[in-house]
């Protein structure tokens, strides 16, 4: 399962030096149960089920701040995206409908989050 995430993301999570810059820079940090920096080590440890169940994958805005800032080219957003894609693949055709999106939105979130979220949930 870890291998799948690594393959989908194209990321080597072992490059992570656990500096936490991704979490430090993440605008959705407070919304998340599992924080970006944890993704790398959890993928390495094989704790994929926890990640699949995590709220964080739906909270990530795909703003790529972590990708931009990561000094080790681990690019956590790609790991998160990979986990998210895994979930979506599991679900098959039953994607969220656009109607469900407003409920998920938080008025505090920046507008780019809405765009990102819509892209994510669309279809």
């Amino acid at each position, binding site marked *: 399962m870890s291998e799948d995430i690594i393959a989908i993301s194209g990321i080597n999570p072992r*490059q992570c*030096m*656990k*500096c*936490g*810059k991704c*979490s*430090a*820079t*993440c605008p959705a*940090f*407070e919304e998340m149960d599992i*924080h970006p*920096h*944890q993704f790398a080590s959890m993928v390495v440890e094989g704790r994929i089920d926890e990640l699949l169940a995590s709220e964080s994958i739906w909270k990530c805005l795909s703003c790529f*701040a972590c990708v931009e*800032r*990561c*000094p*080790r*080219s681990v690019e956590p957003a790609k790991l998160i995206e990979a986990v998210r894609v895994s979930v979506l693949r599991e679900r098959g055709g039953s994607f969220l409908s656009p109607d469900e999106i407003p409920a998920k939105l938080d008025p505090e979130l920046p507008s780019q989050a809405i765009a990102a979220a819509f892209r994510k949930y669309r279809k």
Partner: protein
Amino acid sequence: MQRIGVFVCWCGSNIAATVDVDAVVEAVKNEPGVCHAQNYQYMCSEAGQGLIKNAIKEHNLTGIVVCSCSPRMHEATFRKTAEQAGLNPYMVEIANIREHCSWIHKDKKEATEKAVILARAAIAKVNLNTPLRPGESMVTKRALVIGGGIAGIQSALDIADAGYPVDIVEKSPTIGGKMAQLDKTFPTLDCAACILTPKMVEAAQHPNINIYSYSEVEAVTGFVGNFDVKIKKKARFVDEKKCTGCAVCTAKCPSRKGGNEFNCNLDNRGAIYIPFAQAVPNVACIDSTRCIHFKTGKCGICEKSCSAGAVNFDQKDEIIEQKYGAIVVATGFQISDVTKFDEFQYTKHPDVITSLELERIMNAAGPTKGTLLRMSNKEHPKDIVFIQCVGSRGNTCRDKTYCSKICCMYTAKHAMLIREKYPDVNVHVFYIDVRTPGKNFDEFYRRAVEQYNVDYIKGMVGKVWENEEGRLTVQGVDLLSNRRIMLDTDMVVLAAAIEPSEGVRNIATMLTASIDTNDFLTEAHPKLRPVESPTAGVFLSGVCQGPKDIPETVSQAGAAAVKVVGLLAKDKLVTSPCTANANELMCNGCSTCERVCPYGAIDYIDKEVNDHGKREVRRIARVNSALCHGCGACTVACPSGAMDLQGFSNRQIMAEVDAICK
């Protein structure tokens, strides 16, 4: 035909367990030229070498093949053995049947076959070996030190103390380097100036040391023992002999808009300036790019105010040519560019500074006279955040891949000094790891945490921005408690990565010394020859070789000095005989080899040759064997094959190919 002896080593079981050494001996016995073959448990042992020596005498051997470990390991050993038995050491070849055979193959039959083939190749080569004799060259007993920081000063002092003249070339108007900019030093917290300036003065006054300040190395030719160096002494427009260092001119200079490099541009200096009070030489220098006289032809206040009459606007750059036997590179480091890290607002906010800037702010001679102030409003700060590893340890285009090594310690020092002097200031340190190997280093860091209550937070800072109150907000993460950290602070100090000085690439090229991907100079061997460059006669001192702190730098400076002294103590140098050589009857004089020689070892002469009775003057290549390092680039560039390499000749290599492909 050679008389070759083949000696197959068991290396205990290292070889013998996988290679049937008896079979190898049997197989090589009938090879052309072989008249003796035997095996033994440890050829490199006293007894093993004894066997070889006896066999040389008993069988009148002219060539030796040792089937053993890598030639990188024991080629020198067996060459010495041969020499002791009266054989030319270059008549020895090694067949590497350990690293390249027994250690990598499991099947005994396969390994034995391969060992035989490797032995055959070595035998084929020895059959074509010729006795080689090393050349000799004289040694100029004078050393050059490039860079006048603590590394260069220490190397120069040690060489000078041993009795050899040394020249220091320093590109800025004073020696002292980065250490002169520091306030205190870890882990003892003694003042940098107090320990450095006496050494600067000692260097200046040493009868064997000559300082070329405000000078740069222009060109280097020659080779170990015989370097010819051109030094450009840049015009400082002040007569060094007349200037008393009274500094009247520097105070009167009306051009005061430009930054003061010594204080990291946190304040300004005049166009005529002395970098700092203890500068060596304590002589003013005119920055012609800023001087009003050079721009408009007017002003000249300094000239008028100088009672010694030292100002001379007509001074010109001067080229000094000098011969040296050895060169020490001590070009040091600079702070890497932190402007790339826009998330830290370094370029936007004056209260975001680098650690070196903090050193100047903390220093009594600095822009704030040693008072810790925010640069934005000159107010006393309440909170300071230190961010570690800015630009170090990353693998992106913004980062250096290495650890800059000194930041953990100087940050602990800064934190402690601030807490000591201003107990009301809260100090937070965002770190990834705290690395404190070194004598009394971890104790030092623990003191910062335990006695001075410095707040160490494991986790990186994501971003910094100016908040509504005009202070800075730092957003980070505490990885240990897995929570977001938002801190309002007055100052942010970046522990920027250090990198080799800008000009080092150019200097390395002149010296034909190699540099690594980070522009640090490469050592001849990372463990066993750490202060020598692979280029003979060039030695490494200080951070130009890799990040290090002051005590380490001083140790290395001393080590480099010892190597220099060891070299200069010799009257003559023995040069490797494995050099290129042009067959003058075959040489076309086409100059292709000259173009590819990295050492400038080839020139051309018109020479009368006797080509089987036909006498004529031809332009032919001549190799200076003292300059030639034996790379062989010329041998392939040469279409006629006139150029060949002793020890690795065309025929020898082809004989090996033939033997292997049999």
